[in-house]
C-alpha cells in the first residue's frame, strides 16, 4: 500500500521565542501544540494520536500526554535526533492509514540557549551502555568537529571550497532579514563567512547554526478530517527515512542517508528534484545542506559547491529557493533539532503564507528534509514531500 496522499498537514506553528528563560520545556511543547491546533481549527479533544522525540521531557509521550491531559489512542516517540519530525510525519501517516488515529499532534521544544548549552563545541558524555561511547568519547567528538570532518573530506574528494559553503549561509541571511523572529537578521557576504573565526577546521563560526530556545508543532490528519477544515490542504505525497552509520568501520563521510530517504520519497511521490519549487533542508552547518542537496539529487555528487554558489538558493534570485525563514543558520534551531521548522516553512510556502519578500510564486511542490544525530558518525535522514491541493 502506498502512503501517498493518505495524510495532510493541516496545522503548523513555530514558537516565536528564541530565548525562554522563564518557561519549562513541557510548557513550550504545549504552547506549540496550542498554536498548531488553533492554526488547523481544531481543539485538544480532537487529537487522538501524539508524536514526540527525545526533546520531550521525562517519559516522552507519557509525560507529555499527561501534562497536556490528552486522550489519545496512539503514540510514537521514535528518536532520530533532529530528523525525528519528518519521521513523525511518516509514522503519523502510517498510523492514520492503518486507522490508528485521525488527528496526529507532533511537538518539539527545548531551551538549550537558556540552559547555557555549548551545543556544538562541548563533547557530550553518552550513557556508558551506548556501544560506541567507549571508542569515541576519549577523543572528544563534538557536533562541530564531526560535521567538520565531513566538510574536510568533501573538500579533499571534490575540491569544494569554504567560499562555496559560505554561499549557503549568505542565502540564509538574505532570507532571515525578512523574519522578525530570526536570531540573526543581518545580511552577510561570502567574505564575512570565511573571515569569521575558525571553530573546527574547515568550518567557521558562520558555517554553524544558531543555538536557540523554542519549538514547533504540526497537525497531521486523515483526508476526511482535512476535508472538514478551512485551511489550505497540504498533502503528504512522499516519505522516506534511513539511518546511516560507520558501517562496521567502512566509514564514508561523503554521503548521507538522504541518498536513500530522498529516493524513497521521490519514488513514492512520483516526482523528481527538479519539480520542487521550494526546498527546506536541514542546516545545522553549511556542509549539511551541501551534502543533502547532492544526496537528494538536486545536483550530481561533488557538484554541490557549484550548485549553491552565486545565490542559487536565494528566493527570487536562484533556481532553488531554500530555507526562506532563515533556517537554522540564521533563524531558529529549537532544542538543537531543526527538523520541524523545515516542515513548518515548507507548509508556509505551500499555503502562500511565507513573508512576501521570500514567497515563491505558484509554490505547489516542496521538500522538507531532516538530518539528525551526527553526519560524522551516525545519523538519521528523513524526507517529506508535500503538495498543495
Amino acid at each position, binding site marked *: 500500500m502506498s502512503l501517498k496522499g493518505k495524510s495532510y498537514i493541516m496545522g503548523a506553528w513555530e514558537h516565536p521565542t528564541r530565548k525562554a528563560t522563564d518557561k519549562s520545556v513541557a510548557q513550550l511543547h504545549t504552547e506549540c501544540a496550542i498554536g498548531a491546533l488553533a492554526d488547523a481549527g481544531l481543539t485538544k479533544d480532537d487529537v487522538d494520536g501524539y508524536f514526540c522525540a527525545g526533546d520531550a521531557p521525562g517519559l516522552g509521550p507519557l509525560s507529555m500526554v499527561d501534562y497536556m491531559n490528552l486522550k489519545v489512542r496512539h503514540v510514537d516517540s521514535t528518536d532520530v535526533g533532529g530528523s525525528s519530525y519528518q519521521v513523525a510525519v511518516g509514522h503519523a501517516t502510517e498510523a492514520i492509514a492503518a486507522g490508528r488515529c485521525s488527528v496526529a499532534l507532533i511537538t518539539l521544544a527545548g531551551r538549550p540557549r537558556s540552559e547555557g548549552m555549548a551545543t556544538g563545541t562541548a563533547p557530550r558524555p553518552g550513557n556508558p551502555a551506548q556501544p560506541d561511547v567507549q571508542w569515541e568519547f576519549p577523543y572528544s567528538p563534538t557536533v562541530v568537529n564531526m560535521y567538520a570532518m565531513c566538510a574536510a573530506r568533501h573538500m579533499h574528494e571534490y575540491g569544494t571550497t569554504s567560499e562555496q559553503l559560505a554561499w549557503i549561509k549568505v542565502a540564509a541571511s538574505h532570507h532571515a532579514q525578512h523574519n522578525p523572529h530570526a536570531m540573526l537578521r543581518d545580511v552577510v557576504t561570502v567574505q564575512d563567512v570565511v573571515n569569521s573565526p575558525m571553530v573546527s577546521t574547515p568550518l567557521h563560526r558562520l558555517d554553524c547554526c544558531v543555538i536557540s530556545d523554542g519549538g514547533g508543532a504540526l497537525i497531521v490528519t486523515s483526508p476526511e478530517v482535512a476535508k472538514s477544515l478551512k485551511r489550505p490542504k497540504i498533502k503528504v505525497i512522499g516519505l522516506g527515512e534511513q539511518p546511516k552509520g560507520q558501517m562496521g*568501520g567502512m566509514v564514508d563521510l561523503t554521503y548521507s542517508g538522504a541518498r536513500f530517504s530522498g529516493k524513497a520519497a521521490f519514488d513514492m511521490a512520483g516526482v523528481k528534484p527538479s519539480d520542487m519549487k521550494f526546498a527546506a533542508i536541514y542546516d545545522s552547518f553549511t556542509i549539511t545542506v551541501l551534502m543533502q542537496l547532492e544526496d537528494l539529487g538536486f545536483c550530481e555528487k561533488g557538484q554541490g559547491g557549484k550548485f549553491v554558489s552565486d545565490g542559487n538558493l536565494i528566493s527570487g534570485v536562484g533556481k532553488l529557493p531554500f530555507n526562506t525563514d532563515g533556517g537554522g543558520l540564521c533563524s531558529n534551531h529549537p532544542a538543537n533539532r531543526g527538523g520541524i521548522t523545515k516542515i513548518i516553512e515548507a507548509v508556509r510556502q505551500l499555503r502562500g503564507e511565507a513573508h512576501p519578500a521570500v514567497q515563491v510564486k505558484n509554490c505547489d511542490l516542496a521538500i522538507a528534509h531532516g538530518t539528525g544525530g551526527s553526519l560524522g558518525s551516525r545519523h538519521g535522514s528523513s524526507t517529506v514531500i508535500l503538495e498543495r491541493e
Partner: protein
Amino acid sequence: MADRVINFGEVSPESVEFWNAAKEGKFLVKKCKSCNKVHWYPRAICPFCMSADTEWVAGSGKGKIYSFSHMARANLTIAYVTLEEGPSMMTNIVDCDANALKIGQDVKLVFKPSDKEYPVPMFTPA
C-alpha cells in the same frame, strides 16, 4: 597550550581484553573467524555477518588519515584513520603541527595516558 586531559569513561564488558592489552602497549583489532573481516569499533558480534565467532588479533598500528578537523581552542585534532587492516577508527592525531596535516597522510599508533589506568590509542605522523 597544556595537554588536555583524556576522559576515558568506562570499560565495556565487550572490550576488557582490548584495554588490558593496551596497558601493555599492544593494539588489538577484532577479526571475524567466520567472514575473515576486521571491523571497528570492536564488537563481540561481527557487524558484517553477525557471527559471534570473533577474535582479537594484533593490529599493525599503521594507517592513513581519512579525514580530520582541528579545534585550536580545545588543542584537539579529531580524525578518522583508516587502519592497514581495513576499517577506519575515530581517534586523535597528536604530537604534530595540526596545520601541516593532510588527508591521506601515513600515521602510526601511539598510546596516550588517560584519566583512568588505561592508555588510549591515538596516532601521530609516521
